[in-house]
């Protein structure tokens, strides 16, 4: 290794490093003399069907609004919140920010989102209450829902027929069916209880339908809801692996015939249609006949981070155009979601009757942030841990819930 070699290597290195600077570096969207506007958008649909659906929407939007260009970035879901927060702290959020609906309250509390009341007054009567409550913070509107979903029970028609049971309507039905359907490699029921939001999300329908709640997790109703799930796992009617399964693993179990019933949302319908399973859907079973199922509401919202009035106005055009029934239906069809706008929802259900149960549950479904607002994430984390502890057996449902209650009380005081 002599000096010449070192010089050559260093020159090569310099060239290597500088080359991309001359080649396609990042140039800002070309703004010419006449005022075409470029706005930036960020969402977490990195894969299909969401990815293509958004691309189509943006293409249609640009065609309908000449002069406006939308630069879209999609970031992976796992790190989306931390990315958005980092950008917020550096004041470099995009002009349009998509969020998972339980995150909107926390974001709005930081003051980074623009209140949208001045742009329009949407006809609140034409929207389902639940989704609407996700976008309202301190009586101002901070976003618009692109679509929502909730959870129901899918069942394998053949397996139920073979076992001679009917789809469950009440909790007793659910337990009896799960017991009858568990044989061989097949479990009667499958749900997701993976650490984090998924465990809370799949627990909330049972909790709320029984009139329990997160901040009153120590109440008898809440404990009873947890006992329902624990009973199924303890008796082997649902696999012990639920504490490790995400929702896509649960879906795989159902598609493989290893689970006769699953707790799942409408977004899996396109996927399930490709499998050979002959399936049916029923609402979340209720503790006593006559009660209404209260699932949690999933789905995404579009918000506008504060910036210049012009950009905010253009961004508003983008998210408002999405609420046009045709556009709303196109997007929700791709996602297999239910629009929050009731007329659009009704229209979509007519063309796809499989969505009926989910649409019906939209009326009684509840936003996760309804009571807890920005405190939802930390309470959800505590509840998720308690659910797992009870399912795994490290604590009885009573003990787990009571301990969680103490932690929640403490956390809410801080």
């Amino acid at each position, binding site marked *: 290794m002599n000096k010449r070699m070192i010089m050559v290597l260093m020159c090569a290195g310099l060239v290597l490093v500088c080359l991309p600077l001359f080649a396609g570096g990042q140039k800002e969207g070309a703004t010419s003399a006449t005022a075409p506007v470029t706005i930036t958008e960020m969402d977490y649909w990195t894969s299909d069907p969401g990815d293509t659906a958004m691309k189509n929407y943006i293409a249609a939007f640009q065609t309908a609004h000449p002069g406006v260009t939308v630069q879209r970035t999609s970031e992976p879901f796992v790190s989306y919140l931390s990315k958005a927060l980092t950008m917020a*702290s550096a004041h470099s959020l995009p002009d349009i920010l998509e969020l998972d609906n339980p995150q909107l309250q926390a974001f709005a509390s930081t003051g980074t989102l623009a209140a949208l009341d001045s742009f329009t007054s949407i006809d609140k009567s034409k929207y389902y209450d639940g989704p609407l409550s996700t976008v309202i913070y301190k009586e101002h509107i901070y976003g618009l829902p692109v679509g929502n979903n909730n959870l129901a029970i899918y069942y394998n028609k053949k397996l139920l027929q073979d076992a001679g049971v009917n789809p469950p309507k009440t909790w007793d039905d659910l337990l009896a069916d799960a017991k009858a359907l568990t044989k061989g490699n097949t479990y009667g029921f499958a749900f997701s209880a993976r*650490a984090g939001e998924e465990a809370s999300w799949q627990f909330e329908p049972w909790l709320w339908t029984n009139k329990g709640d997160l901040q009153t997790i120590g109440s008898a109703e809440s404990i009873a809801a947890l006992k329902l799930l624990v009973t199924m796992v303890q008796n082997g009617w649902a696999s*012990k*692996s639920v504490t*490790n399964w995400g929702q896509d693993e649960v879906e795989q179990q159902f598609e493989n015939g290893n689970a006769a019933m699953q707790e799942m949302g409408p977004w899996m319908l396109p996927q399930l249609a490709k499998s050979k399973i002959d399936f049916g859907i029923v609402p979340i079973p209720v503790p006593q006949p006559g009660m209404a199922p209260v699932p949690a509401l999933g789905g995404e919202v579009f918000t506008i981070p504060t910036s210049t009035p012009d950009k905010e106005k253009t961004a508003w055009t983008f998210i408002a155009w999405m609420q046009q029934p045709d556009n709303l239906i196109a997007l929700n069809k791709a996602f297999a979601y239910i629009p929050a706008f009731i007329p659009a929802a009704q229209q979509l259900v007519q063309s796809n009757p499989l969505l009926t149960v989910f649409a019906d549950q939209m009326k009684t479904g509840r936003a996760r942030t309804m009571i807890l607002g920005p405190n939802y*994430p*930390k309470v959800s*984390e505590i509840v998720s841990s308690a659910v797992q502890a009870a399912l*795994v057996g490290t*604590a009885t449902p009573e003990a787990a819930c009571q301990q969680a209650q103490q932690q929640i009380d403490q956390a809410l005081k801080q």
Partner: protein
Amino acid sequence: MRAEAVNQRPSMSRSFRRRQRLRLLFLLPMLVEFAVVFVYPLFNNVRMSLLRYDIAAFVSGRAPFVGFENYVNILGNRLMEPTVINTVVFTVVSILFQFVIGMLLALLFKRRFAGAQLLRTLLLIPWLLPIIVSATTFRWMFDYTNGIINQFLLDLHLITHPLSWLITPQLAMVSVIITNIWIGIPFNMVLLYGGLVAIPDEYYEAASIDGASGPQSFWYITVPALREVMMIVLMLGLIYTLKVFDVIMVLTGGGPADSTQILSTWTYSLSFRSLSFGQGAAAGNLLIVISLVFAVIYLRFSWTSLTGARSGGGR
């Protein structure tokens, strides 16, 4: 000659000082990097831990000063003790096995046999897989019903019932540790191997002429010669094991019921799941303090090796 030395002394001291300044240039780029990259975040992390940093504060950068309240809350958190215990268990067991297996492999591959170089290269391939892929693969392998590991064990009649690898708290920790050991073996092996091959063969030849056996030449030649390398491998292994995050998040998400939560994953959970950034920063700083304690121990040993006896026999 002495006269010359006296005459040269003034110019020697000037050129000596000049030499010292030039020597600093060797360090300059690194120092610049320090200043830019590390000073600010360290300072910021400490600052965040002394403020009530909720999500609004994260965005605006302003938050009320609360002194050590975050630390008090963290230390009183019921998850603190199990998390620290998990961290210790995870780290100690991982490093122990990674190091020993890495050393054994390095020793094995130092010998000349057919295919040694190829096999050694193959063992580096696990490193090339992104962690999310390796961790996901292990997650599939450990699954209760779908996993190939349970399948193997059942087929070999070593167990009669599938093991709940990722489900029961103790086995979940075992699974996570096994995965981490697998990921860390190439790191240890490469560094230790590099140190091994730098030991001249003559030392071993001399020792065998003196009648030393295999284990003896290991303890009296290899270990002293490898001392600096071994210590840095352990030190860096410790630091990086304490930072392990993706492996656990993918395998168990910290669960079930926080049984595989270690300080690094708990910091993330506090900051980005519960959105309590001040507490997350406090937990992160605790992690740094723990690492620092070990760093001090390392430096104490490293200093004696610098100033005291140099590595091993026969120089």
